[in-house]
């Protein structure tokens, strides 16, 4: 147990010292959110309708910037190899890495998505489902990102995103639908429950698969 707390502390330290890890997704998010009104229309009526989907897609795309961070540095400096050789529970270590990555790359964006109320004329009563669906949906996306990152370690190819984005489709559908439901006065709790179910169901599977993918690089 002590070992895992140490790893957690180490991960926090690495991410907090490397400011680009949490600044780049945020910058990407802010830039794209401010581009939509310019590119599509500055009409509040149009933007209001598009806002749930735009926010969700932007969050999804901004995780593409950070998912390589989960393993790539540890791979390059060899610490993954040491973790693999340590004989500790690897899936727990991977879980810690994903969790810390989520805190630093997704949480700031979720907080900043409140800005869409001003920038995209997003109705205030939709904020609650927006934040809840993002809080529950983004960990699943980070899980897919970890798997894609573990498989495409050391390679700069399209395979990572090409694997991650189609997998994230249910989360995107259920997340945007939750917001649209609540804006139309329909109870959205079923969507949130489904998002939770997907997260809980996929968590062990993806952790297991990511560990297998990591081992591939060290035969």
């Amino acid at each position: 147990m002590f070992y895992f707390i140490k790893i957690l502390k180490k991960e926090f330290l690495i991410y907090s010292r490397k400011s680009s890890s949490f600044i780049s997704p945020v910058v990407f998010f802010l830039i794209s959110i401010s581009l939509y009104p310019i590119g599509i229309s500055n009409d509040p009526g149009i933007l209001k309708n598009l806002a749930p989907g735009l926010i969700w897609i932007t969050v999804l795309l901004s995780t593409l910037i950070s998912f390589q961070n989960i393993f790539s540095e540890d791979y390059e400096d060899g610490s993954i190899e040491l973790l693999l050789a340590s004989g500790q529970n690897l899936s727990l270590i991977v879980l810690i890495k994903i969790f810390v990555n989520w805190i630093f790359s997704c949480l700031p964006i979720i907080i900043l998505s409140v800005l869409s109320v001003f920038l995209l004329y997003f109705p205030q009563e939709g904020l609650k489902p927006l934040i809840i669906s993002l809080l529950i949906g983004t960990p699943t996306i980070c899980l897919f990102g970890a798997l894609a990152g573990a498989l495409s370690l050391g390679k700069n190819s399209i395979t990572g995103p090409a694997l991650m984005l189609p997998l994230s489709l249910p989360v995107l559908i259920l997340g945007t639908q939750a917001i649209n439901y609540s804006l139309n006065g329909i109870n959205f709790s079923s969507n949130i429950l489904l998002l939770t179910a997907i997260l809980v169901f996929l968590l062990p599977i993806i952790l297991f698969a990511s560990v297998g993918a990591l081992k591939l690089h060290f035969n």
Partner: protein
Amino acid sequence: MFKTLKNFYHKLGSYPWFYKISGKVIPFVGVFSISLIIISSIWGLFFSPTDAVQGDVYRIIYFHVPAVSVSQVIYYSMSVAAAVFLIWRMKMAGVYIKSLAPIGAAFTFIGLLSGAIWGQPTWGTWWVWDARLTSTLVLFLFYLAIIGMQSTFASRKSADTAVSIITLVGVVNLPIVKKSVDWWNTLHQPASISISGESSISSEMLIPLLLSILGAYLFVFFTGLLFMRAEISTREQNKEWFKKLSSNN
């Protein structure tokens, strides 16, 4: 019974045995599948009755339905092979996944394309973001990811393992995708054939359709064997048994 099955399974894992047997089977399967496809096409295109609602356009069903049904079955069979590869490390399963993925992708593409051509006169649009179309598109993307992942690993074993992992994660996710797009949007007509219940299609149309589906399955079997043989011969070209075999011919 169980013993012969087990024996067969173990034999299936051996490259030389598979190479020998598949060489004998291929000509029969090839002739049978291609003639079935030709017969069902001619029957479906010229002799089956015209549909009361859709007119002659419906005849594209004889290409659309076989392609789509085959595309899904190939994916599920690949996921079984992926599990076999990860659990028992059977090399043949890796060959199976690598050979069948392009075939599955091709059939998914044919399904999407023929669906678009069918949709234009009946729905008035080439593409709708309907549940079935979307989940087929996602299936196509999974195939592409699997094919793309093949080339990113230097060692064959690592590539096979990586692809097996992706295939299994994909098969876990596919029902979730299917259900979520179902709740999202549905326009596509429900399936016309049902094994348990009454089919909603007349028997004069059904028989050529079933023949075309059977033909498509056999065609997959045929091309799958061909691709697997090609894959085995690239993997084993420096092995003794392969050299001996090719010097004999």
